[in-house]
C-alpha cells in the first residue's frame, strides 16, 4: 500500500481509491451503506446493577414495560417500513425477554444485542451479541456485584459466532484488559473496546482523566499488536476513542440529540425507543443520558466516525484510517462480516483536528 508519512495534501477521490488495497476495502465496506439503525430498550429489568450503568440513569428507567408481543411485532414492521435495516437491542437486559428479541430479528434480520452475558440468548435470534466486560472478576464483583462473570459469560457463548466481548475501560481496570484478552483468545472469542463515558451529572470515580486516557491508549495499542486475531479494533479506533477531546468535539455527533437536522442520515431516521415503545427526539442517541462532552462510547463512534467519510477522503492515509474504522465497526456489529487486516499500523490524526497524531 502506498501509505507513507502523514500528508495534509488533498487528493482526488479517484486517485485515493486507485490503490488496489484501498479499492478492495472500499468496495467491501460500501456494500453495507444501506444500514440504518435504531435502538430499542427491551425491558426495564436487569439481573445485576452496575456502577455508572447507562440504563439506570435519567428518565428512561421509569418507562413502563410493554410486553405485548403483537405491539412489538407492529413496531418492528413499522420500523422496517420507514427504512430501518439494523436493530440494536439494549437496556436494561434483553436476555430477560428472549421472545421479544426474536420478534425483532424476525422482522429486521440484521442487528445487535447488548447484554451482560449472564443468561444465554437463544441461537434463533441471529444478531451479533455484545457481552459487556468491565474488568477482572474481582473488579466485576466490586462494580457489578456479580461473581465469576467472565467464566459464566464464556460458558454461555462458547463456540457461538454471534459473540463479541466488549471491554469497557475505566480508570481502574486498564491493566486488567490484557488478562481478559488473553483468556478470551484462548477460548477462541473476540473482543472489542469501549470507553466509560460519564452519564450526565455523574460525579463518581469512573470518569476518565488525561492520565487514564493515555494509559488506555498504550494498553489498547499493545493488545492490538499482540492479539490481532482476537482484538476487533484499529489504530484509528484508538485515536478516536482515547483523545482528550470527545467524539462530538472531534467529529460532530450526528445523533438527533446533537443534530437538529431531520433532512438526512441519523438525524432523520434514528430513534431510541424506550420500553413503553415511545421515543423522544431530544434524548435520541445510542447512549442516552451520556454527557456528550465526555462521550467516547464505542456505539457512538460506530455511527459518528463512520458517517464522516467525506472529511476523511483527503488523502490515502486518512481514508485508509477511516476504512479501518468502518471495517472494524462492521465486524463488531454485523453477523457474518469478517474483518480484514488493518490497512494502517500506526495512528493518524483526525482530519481538521489541527493536532499531530496522538503518540502511542
Amino acid at each position: 500500500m502506498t501509505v507513507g508519512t502523514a500528508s495534509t495534501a488533498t487528493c482526488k477521490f479517484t486517485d485515493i481509491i486507485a490503490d488496489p488495497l484501498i479499492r478492495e476495502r472500499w468496495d467491501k465496506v460500501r456494500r453495507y451503506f444501506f444500514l440504518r439503525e435504531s435502538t430499542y430498550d427491551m425491558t426495564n429489568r436487569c439481573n445485576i446493577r452496575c456502577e455508572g450503568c447507562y440504563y439506570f440513569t435519567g428518565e428512561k428507567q421509569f418507562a413502563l414495560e410493554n410486553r405485548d408481543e403483537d405491539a412489538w411485532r407492529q413496531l418492528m414492521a413499522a420500523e422496517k417500513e420507514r427504512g430501518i435495516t439494523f436493530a440494536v437491542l439494549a437496556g436494561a437486559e434483553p436476555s430477560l425477554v428472549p421472545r421479544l428479541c426474536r420478534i425483532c430479528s424476525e422482522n429486521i434480520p440484521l442487528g445487535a444485542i447488548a447484554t451482560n452475558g449472564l443468561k444465554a440468548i437463544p441461537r434463533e435470534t441471529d444478531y451479533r451479541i455484545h457481552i459487556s466486560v468491565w474488568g477482572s472478576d474481582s473488579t466485576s464483583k466490586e462494580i457489578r456485584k456479580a461473581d465469576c462473570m467472565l467464566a459464566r459469560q464464556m460458558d454461555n457463548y462458547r463456540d457461538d459466532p454471534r459473540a463479541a466481548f466488549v471491554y469497557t475501560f475505566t480508570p481502574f481496570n486498564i491493566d486488567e484488559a490484557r488478562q481478559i484478552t488473553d483468556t478470551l483468545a484462548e477460548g477462541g472469542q473476540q473482543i472489542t473496546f469501549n470507553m466509560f463515558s460519564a452519564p450526565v451529572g455523574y460525579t463518581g470515580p469512573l470518569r476518565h482523566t488525561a492520565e487514564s486516557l493515555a494509559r488506555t491508549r498504550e494498553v489498547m495499542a499493545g493488545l492490538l499488536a499482540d492479539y490481532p486475531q482476537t482484538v476487533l479494533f484499529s489504530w484509528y479506533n484508538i485515536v478516536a476513542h482515547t483523545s482528550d477531546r470527545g467524539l462530538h468535539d472531534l467529529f460532530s455527533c450526528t445523533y438527533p440529540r446533537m443534530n437538529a437536522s431531520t433532512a438526512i442520515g441519523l438525524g432523520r431516521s434514528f430513534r431510541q425507543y424506550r420500553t413503553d415503545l415511545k421515543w423522544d427526539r431530544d434524548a435520541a442517541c445510542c447512549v442516552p443520558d451520556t454527557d456528550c462532552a465526555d462521550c467516547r462510547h464505542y456505539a457512538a463512534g460506530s455511527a459518528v466516525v463512520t458517517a464522516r467519510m467525506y472529511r476523511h477522503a483527503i488523502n490515502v492515509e486518512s481514508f485508509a484510517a477511516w476504512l479501518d474504522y468502518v471495517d472494524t465497526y462492521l465486524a463488531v456489529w454485523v453477523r457474518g462480516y469478517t474483518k480484514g487486516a488493518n490497512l494502517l499500523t500506526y495512528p493518524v490524526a483526525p482530519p481538521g483536528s489541527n493536532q499531530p497524531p496522538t503518540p502511542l
Partner: protein
Amino acid sequence: MWYFRPSFKKITNNTLLAHITVSDGSPWFSGHFPDDPILPGIAQLNMAAEVISIARQENLCIKRLSRVKFKKRIRPGDRLEIHASATEANLYTFRITSEAQDVCSGVMCLAATTASDKSIMTIAIDQTITRVAEIIINELKLEDVTPTTFNPDLDLVDEVGIDSMDLATIALVIRDEFGIRIDEDDYPTLTTVRIIAAYIDQRKNGAE
C-alpha cells in the same frame, strides 16, 4: 454532459489533451438525423470549449471562431481526442481527432461568461443537471432511468431513497469532477439534482 466526462491525459499551462466518448444517449442525435445520427458541428465546438473550461476550472464561452473545418462524421459511441493549445490569452487552436484522423479543427477565442451570457449559463446549468443525474444513476446503480429522463426536481431522500453515505459518495465524485468542495453541513440542503447543480455552479463561480 451529453458526452462521457473527459479524461485528461495531459494538461500544461498552454496545452491539453483529453479523451472523450460520445454518449449513445445524447439528445443531439435524436433529431440530427432520424436513423442517421451525426453529432452537429455546433456540438463539437461546444465540446472543445467545455473541455478547456473544465481544464481551466472557469466558466468560459465562445466569443469568436475562425478557420473551422469539419472533416469526419462523429457517430454515437465514437471515441475522440481533443487537443487544444493557447496561442495567447483565451485564444486556442483546437483539433478533434478520432482513430488518428482529423474530425474538426480551428481557432476559438474564449471569454469568461457574464450576466449577459444568460442563455449560455442556462445551457451550462442544464448540462450540470444532466451530469449530476448521471453521477447519481451510476453511484446508486439506478435502473430504468437515464440522465436525460431523470426528473431533476425529485426529492433525493424521500423519492429516490438516498441516505447520507450515498450523498457523501456522490459529493466525492462531484468534488473530483468539478473541483469544488461540498461542506458536510450543506448535505441537508442538497435535496434535488437541480439544487445540487445550482450549488455546483455557484461554487464554480466563486459564490460561497
